[in-house]
């Protein structure tokens, strides 16, 4: 099923012509109004009005999360706040979040793309869509919400959590489509089993699961336990939110909506673009965004692109399920966590050494994070109470920046490895990616 058949099934030539036209306009605009891009382009000797062909893309500068941080909060916006009608935020690499903005037109584009994504997996105006992604600064909840409304489906904006209620409402309201993180889908399935609710008691037909990596083994488990077809959805707030790419019913990769997002895979070391079929870092250029247009944004997500035409007839290239990260970012219950955030919090708090270790595990279906922090050598710790208070303060500070709950474990001084590469700081016991 198509939402916008003419666009989704146009020829590759037509698509590339559209992309080139949009790229040219984008570079002209950001070069004129965003000082950051004006300087970056000038540094490479590129005049904003000189970019006309898709081949020119490889000469354009990259944008990174650090650039967003350096221009916090609104420095990369290409419009004034008067034009901005919505702001979302995601995790930054320090104590400050990454801020993104939308004009009215951006929100319309986003709704349309989410409608396109949901239609691709079979959602119609007869569907009942239960949105169990978090609502708020996180783009997941509101992104799916407005896309489903655009189609005319009935939306249940339940947000995340309160799992028994999720099951009860799914049963009573006749939910046909569930949207949440894949790990939360499994939590719902477990709770269903505990409540004695079977898949046949529900009307679930499809699930739209994203915001964290998952394997095909997990897909099979979810499909069996919930009695639905499970589809992977991809997006990131910097680019727009969910609705950058979606699996179609063929489940052979996620179609990237290339009429709005130019996608490349690059060698993360050299920055050189890689041909289709080779594994590397996903890089997106937003072709139509008004408030926060980004040129060659490096996602840190590792994947492979395939250009062969899909059985579904869509013109858009497919990306494989995300296969890993170029950096040490963790995704905990759908929330992006950068270990450097923990370091920033500890430095800011100043009560302990800034050394830490993160231990991530999935007990049952829920991600759990333990932050190991050293007791300061001379801490007045003759009473348990004082140590517990220290633990509480550290936990509170970390939770307020990371936005997820963690457990803090105090360890003896000098037992955490010192700056011997980032790998040692993280012990991730989950199996999130396909082994290849």
């Amino acid at each position, binding site marked *: 099923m198509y939402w916008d058949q003419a666009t989704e099934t146009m020829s590759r030539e037509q698509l590339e012509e559209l992309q080139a036209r949009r790229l040219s306009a984008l570079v002209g605009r950001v070069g004129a109004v965003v000082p950051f891009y004006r300087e970056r382009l000038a540094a490479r000797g590129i005049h904003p009005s000189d970019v006309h062909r898709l081949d020119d893309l490889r000469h354009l500068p990259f944008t990174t999360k650090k650039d967003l941080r350096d221009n916090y909060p609104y420095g990369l916006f290409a419009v004034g706040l008067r034009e901005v009608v919505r702001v979302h935020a995601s995790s930054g690499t320090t104590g400050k979040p990454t801020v993104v903005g939308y004009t009215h037109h951006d929100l319309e584009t986003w709704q349309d793309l989410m409608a396109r994504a949901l239609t691709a997996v079979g959602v119609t105006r007869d569907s009942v869509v239960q949105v169990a992604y978090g609502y708020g600064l996180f783009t997941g909840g509101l992104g799916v919400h407005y896309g489903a409304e655009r189609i005319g489906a009935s939306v249940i904006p339940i947000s995340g959590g309160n799992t028994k209620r999720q099951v009860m409402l799914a049963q009573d309201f006749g939910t046909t489509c569930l949207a949440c993180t894949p790990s939360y889908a499994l939590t719902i399935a477990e709770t269903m089993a505990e409540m004695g609710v079977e898949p046949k008691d529900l009307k679930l037909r499809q699930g739209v699961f994203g915001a964290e990596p998952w394997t095909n083994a997990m897909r099979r488990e979810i499909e069996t336990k919930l009695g639905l077809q499970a589809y992977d959805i991809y997006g990131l707030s910097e680019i727009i939110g969910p609705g950058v790419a979606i699996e179609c019913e063929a489940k052979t990769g996620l179609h990237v909506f290339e009429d709005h997002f130019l996608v490349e895979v690059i060698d993360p070391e050299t920055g050189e673009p890689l041909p289709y079929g080779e594994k590397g870092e996903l890089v997106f250029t937003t072709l139509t965004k008004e408030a926060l247009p980004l040129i060659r944004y490096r996602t840190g997500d590792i994947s492979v692109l395939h250009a062969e035409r899909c059985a579904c007839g869509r013109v858009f290239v497919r990306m494989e399920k995300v296969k890993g990260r170029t950096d040490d970012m963790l995704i905990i219950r759908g929330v992006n966590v950068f270990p450097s955030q923990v370091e920033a919090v500890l430095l800011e708090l100043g009560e302990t050494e800034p050394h830490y270790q993160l231990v991530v595990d999935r007990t049952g279906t829920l991600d759990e994070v333990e932050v190991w922090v*050293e*007791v*300061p*050598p*001379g*801490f*007045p*710790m*003759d*009473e*348990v109470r004082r*140590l*517990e208070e220290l633990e509480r303060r550290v936990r509170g500070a970390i939770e307020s920046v990371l936005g997820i709950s963690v457990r803090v*474990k*105090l*360890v*003896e*001084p*000098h*037992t955490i490895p010192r700056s011997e590469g980032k790998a040692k700081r993280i012990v991730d016991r989950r199996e999130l990616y396909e082994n290849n």
Partner: protein
Amino acid sequence: MEVRQISVFLENKAGRLAKVTRLLGDNGINIRALSIADTTDFGILRMIVNDPERAERLLREAGFAVTTTGVLAVEVPDRPGGLAEVLEVLERAGLNIEYLYAFVEKASPDALVLIRVEDLPKAVRVLTEAGVSVLPGKRVYAL
């Protein structure tokens, strides 16, 4: 009048307590009294030793989190109700006890108890006024 108590932070894993006691033993330091407070993740080892200054330095050099705290060594009549009488003195003075533990050895026919309260000088005063004997540090280390 206070006695210097050494506290060491220990993770709950095998061999930590043995390491502390071996280190002190190899350096000729004698442990006179000890107690352990523990939670699921960690423990606090509190000790009275014959040379607190050197013990603290040795432990710190060995990488342990160490702190010293003043506590009171109080002689308690060695009979039913003996401890209660002493504690009632502190309670009447509005002094909260953070923790206490006992010495195995005795300086006299009375039992010897280590008591930690926030306001040590006040505790010394009220105990002395009530006729309770509080031993000075140097007598306790030499026991």
